[in-house]
């Protein structure tokens, strides 16, 4: 098949699909803005909650580290105390 013929076929299909533009109902715009705004608000809320969680985790870890002091060598309780010599 020659390319010219292929272009003819494509042009024919394009003509089939083309149509006079119809007015778009106005509620599509309002509904899209409503849904899109809701998505935006939910994303903002989710981001805030995640930041809050991260902050709470950092605070909790700091408090735990300062109270438990895991870097200090624990007192040994396997060796008996050296007494009486």
């Amino acid at each position, binding site marked *: 098949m020659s390319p010219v013929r292929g272009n003819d076929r*494509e042009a024919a*299909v394009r003509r089939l699909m083309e149509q006079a533009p119809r007015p778009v*109902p106005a509620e*599509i715009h309002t509904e899209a*803005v409503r849904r899109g705004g809701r*998505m935006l608000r939910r994303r903002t809320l989710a981001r805030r909650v995640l930041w809050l969680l991260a902050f709470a985790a950092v605070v909790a870890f700091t408090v735990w580290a300062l109270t438990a002091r895991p870097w200090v060598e624990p007192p040994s309780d396997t060796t008996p105390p050296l007494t009486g010599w």
Partner: protein
Amino acid sequence: MRQRHASQATRRDREFEAFVAGAAGRLLHAATLLTAEPPDDNPRARRLLTLSLAHTYACWDRLRGEDPYDRARQYVATRFARGAWHQYGGFGRARPHPASPLAPLTPQERLILVLRLYEGVGEEQTAALLGLSTERVRAICHRATTTLLHRTRDPAPAVPAAKAVPS
């Protein structure tokens, strides 16, 4: 901070309204072609368009110079491709309406034909968007064109001749 947010929101609303006024007609027609509904009664195409526009609205501030029409079209295409699997073909499911020009085609053929010929998206971009190979897109497009032109020339074909191709 709050003022900046408010001014950003009003600017987004204004730009989005202009975008919808300019692009919604063409997108709605493309969606109606995809769902193969008659142009006057197209609830599924309207729903598709509404969801796509809502998605575009939600990511409007992060477009960074990208074309919003492109984004909306991508969303329509991918959502239709995902939904077509369980919306068409089964018993009692949606059938293509005979008033639609693309009624004799399958959903995938309609999708590729609309993207390639009505919207003018390149072969490689269509293939990347739908996760197909370029040759497959070309073959489906060719087959769909043949089916469509054959049907319009001969409105009542007795046997579907395209099915007889040996694999």
